[in-house]
């Protein structure tokens, strides 16, 4: 075999291996190799059109916690959203630095245009425009924050909850650039400190750890409470108003599934393929 022919065969061989192996490698890279835990109802996987909301994944396996937020109920109950935020932030020792630059928040309110920037807000009715929407981490089924984290300090639990390990986080903030929902906050300063004698954490809850400076944090879906069989604090704070529902999206009989089956809901930025687990009734 002459030299150039041998070279050609070698290259051809390598390319063949590369073409066959590339999709598999890509799958591994994006974490798609793991079965997606799917949406509420099992649906056949169909290739999504470009820009269209991602197709529903494979048949659901295991648990996937999710939440429904009824914005109309919050609108009808002024002060309720604040109550939820208060419940969350005081329990989890979320500091208040009193300025926007250092701000840390797990749960907050936003107008329609900001919470759903990809939905048209042109000529929407007055109620929608005057409503505020509670937003938090969506505990995405395909979380880009988890994909980006170089240390597995943010990771997805088997029950679908996207968790943080504050002791492993190196504070690179790659996950913050990756999250399309602004759900993550960084400890720019020491949250345990104080300014002019006023501590950043007004009332310390000794049952939950405070964070150190230089790490990222976000809503945990109250994973610790779920383990004790309790509802998330924000959901509990809504009492019997029916403003929030929580449960296993993969269990067709859970509260949250029943609401999803009977009401029209939307998710934030569905076109990005992150498949959020938080749904909204508008």
């Amino acid at each position: 075999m002459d030299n150039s022919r041998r070279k050609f065969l070698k290259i051809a061989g390598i390319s063949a291996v590369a073409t066959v192996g590339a999709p598999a490698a890509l799958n591994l890279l994006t974490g798609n190799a793991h079965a997606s835990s799917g949406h509420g109802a099992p649906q056949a996987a169909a290739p999504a059109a470009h820009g269209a909301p991602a197709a529903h994944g494979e048949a659901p396996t295991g648990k996937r916690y999710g939440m429904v937020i009824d914005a109309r109920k919050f609108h009808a109950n002024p002060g309720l959203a604040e109550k939820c935020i208060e419940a969350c932030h005081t329990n989890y020792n979320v500091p208040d630095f009193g300025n926007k630059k250092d701000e840390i928040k797990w749960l907050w309110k936003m107008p329609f245009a900001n919470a759903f920037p990809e939905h048209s807000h042109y000529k929407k009715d007055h109620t929608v425009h005057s409503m505020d929407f509670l937003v938090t981490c969506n505990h995405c089924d395909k979380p880009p924050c988890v994909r980006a984290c170089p240390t597995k300090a943010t990771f997805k639990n088997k029950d679908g909850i996207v968790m943080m390990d504050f002791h492993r986080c190196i504070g690179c903030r790659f996950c913050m650039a990756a999250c399309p929902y602004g759900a993550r906050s960084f400890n720019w300063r020491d949250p345990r400190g104080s300014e002019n004698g006023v501590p950043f954490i007004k009332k310390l809850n000794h049952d939950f750890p405070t964070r150190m400076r230089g790490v990222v944090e976000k809503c945990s879906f109250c994973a610790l409470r779920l383990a004790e069989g309790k509802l998330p604090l924000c959901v509990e704070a809504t009492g019997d108003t029916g403003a929030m529902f929580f449960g296993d999206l993969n269990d067709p009989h859970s509260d949250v599934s029943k609401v999803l089956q009977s009401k029209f809901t939307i998710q934030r930025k569905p076109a990005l393929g992150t498949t959020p687990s938080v749904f909204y009734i508008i």
Partner: protein
Amino acid sequence: MLEKALKGNVGYWAWILCLLGIMGVGVICYAVQFNYGLGATGMSRDVTWGIYISQFTFLVGVAAGGLMLVLPYYLHHYKDFGRITILGEFMAIAAVAMCLLFIMADLGQPMRALNVVFHPTPNSMLFYDMIVLNGYLFLNVVCGWVVLHSEYKGIKYPNWVKPLIYLSIPWAVSIHTVTAFLYCGLPGRHFWLTAILAPRFLASAFAAGPALLMVIALIMKQTTKFNVGRVAQDKLVTIIGYAAILNFFFLGCEIFVAYYSQIPGHMHTLDYLFFGLTDHATGEVYNNLVPFMRASVIMGFAGIALLFFSRSQKSDSMLAISCILIFVSFWIDKGLGLVLGGFVPNGMEQITEYIPTGIEIGVTAGIWATGFFIITVLYKIAISVKLENEKTA
């Protein structure tokens, strides 16, 4: 060989002292930041990366740009690059060293940096970036040092470095590609989410890296007896010129896609960078990067024109000015606009501007000074060896 760095004239020592001074300021500023936290910088919840990461991105390009000096000599046996190949490798060393320092300066928990190694995560692009950057540093240290040391001894370099030199060529491409992948794989950041990001990074790198080298070479021509030669200089003009033109072609492609498709997400950041963005809720206009970005485009085009003109005029001073223009233009484009612009507007279409603090600028200056310190020492050694060799030859 190291002793060569310890002999120099007054000018050399004054320059070294000046760099050490700036490095000292950098250390003090970093100490402040370390004690207070990253809140000492201008970064915020909405703009989570600032000038540290943008300098890092730009400098990966400068490091990759060294390729344009190594490739012609080793792959095409272009003998006229014999004197500058080593300069390209040493520039890459300094640039990668700065990159690593900028990453460290940006970490919220720098003491835990090794977690990236302890908990390797193959789905994170930062994991690959760590591998390729450190690998490139290693390759350039080994290749550059061994080749120069052989020259110092008056022998040909050993054969075992050959494969490493060849490896360093695709590796240079990989560092900038992976760095582009840090950005262009993120959903919801429309400005970065473009397949042309890596090619654009490479084009600007292949212009900015050699442009910096050209400026240094021209300074050395004035202050030492070291001359890279007219032929090599003219060849570099071609490389810098075409790479710079390609960069603007790619930028033009971005602008076309955004404004012809009229998709708001694609237009917003470009609007912000070149025209300013209005917050519709408050009517306030945000435009603090506009003068820089416009200057960048003007300087880039002026630099390219002057570059080719200087060659026809055989004018070194014009050549130096054109290279500075191109370097600064691309520094603004990548070292400011690309990273900072990507965060405006944020994912909720809110606008937060970022202004670096004094502390941040101090740390940045300190790291740049460290880079120039490394370049100075390495180049001092390299040209001493080269000049001595030529005397005896």
